[in-house]
């Protein structure tokens, strides 16, 4: 079975490219059995979203506070 290090590597790469069918299957099987990697797989896309939202922070809150 695929280990967690490998699983996190594939989860990371899925942000850059489409995984192959066999990669997807092995990853899915691993995630079914591993809560840690399941959480990881949700958190990694969030890191990207957060990075893109980075520039807008603080000023957004200030403006919300004013309204």
């Amino acid at each position, binding site marked *: 079975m695929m*280990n*967690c*290090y*490998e699983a*996190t*590597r594939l989860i*990371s*790469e899925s*942000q*850059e*490219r489409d995984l192959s069918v066999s990669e997807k299957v092995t990853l899915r099987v691993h995630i079914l059995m*591993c*809560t*840690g*990697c399941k*959480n*990881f797989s*949700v*958190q*990694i896309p*969030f*890191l*990207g*979203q*957060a*990075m*893109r*939202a*980075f*520039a*807008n*922070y*603080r*000023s*957004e*809150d*200030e*403006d*919300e*506070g*004013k309204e």
Partner: protein
Amino acid sequence: MSGSNAHNQLVDGIDTSDLSDTIFLKELRRQMVKFATLQLSNAEAAEDAVQEALMGAMKNAKSFAGHAALKTWVFAILRNKIADVLRQKQRLVEASNLLSDEEENEDFTELFNNKGYWHRDERPASWGNPHEALHQNQFWKIFEVCLEKLPGHQARVFMMKEFIELDAKEICTTVGISNTNLNVMLHRSRLRLRECLENTWFIKECAT
């Protein structure tokens, strides 16, 4: 906490005409310079890019209602400027530099055991609804700290990918690394950034 409240009050108390608001501008400039320096690894080039982006913004400052809109826009200009500079300067960083940096940081045994499975106490926990964090000032301070803790090249490559949104090919040519190297670096930066956010933000959030 009281520090950030004081800051907000200070900013809120000022009649904000955006680019003439010196406190806002100072803070914006600080963030821009920090970001550009990290990306270009050259203080002078970073100052130039920030200056150009701000000058571009001055021209149309009146058409922007509120700090948020202005800031988003200024950063969009800056992002384009940086992308241009990066594209012109190929092989910005010596490939050998990157590799040695990689080797130094090879060690992930603090996260995984020798079979490659998570150590029990390093296993990623549930973050609940992480998107709520995006609206909290304190979260962004922690995010910045975690980003700064990444080894230099990892932070740059991660930001190129996720913030400047260059595609993988462009990053590889610009930095002078192979696709495999890029994947390794992105994987590592995500492992580290994730762990830092979990330890300094999300675990505490869930506990309260």
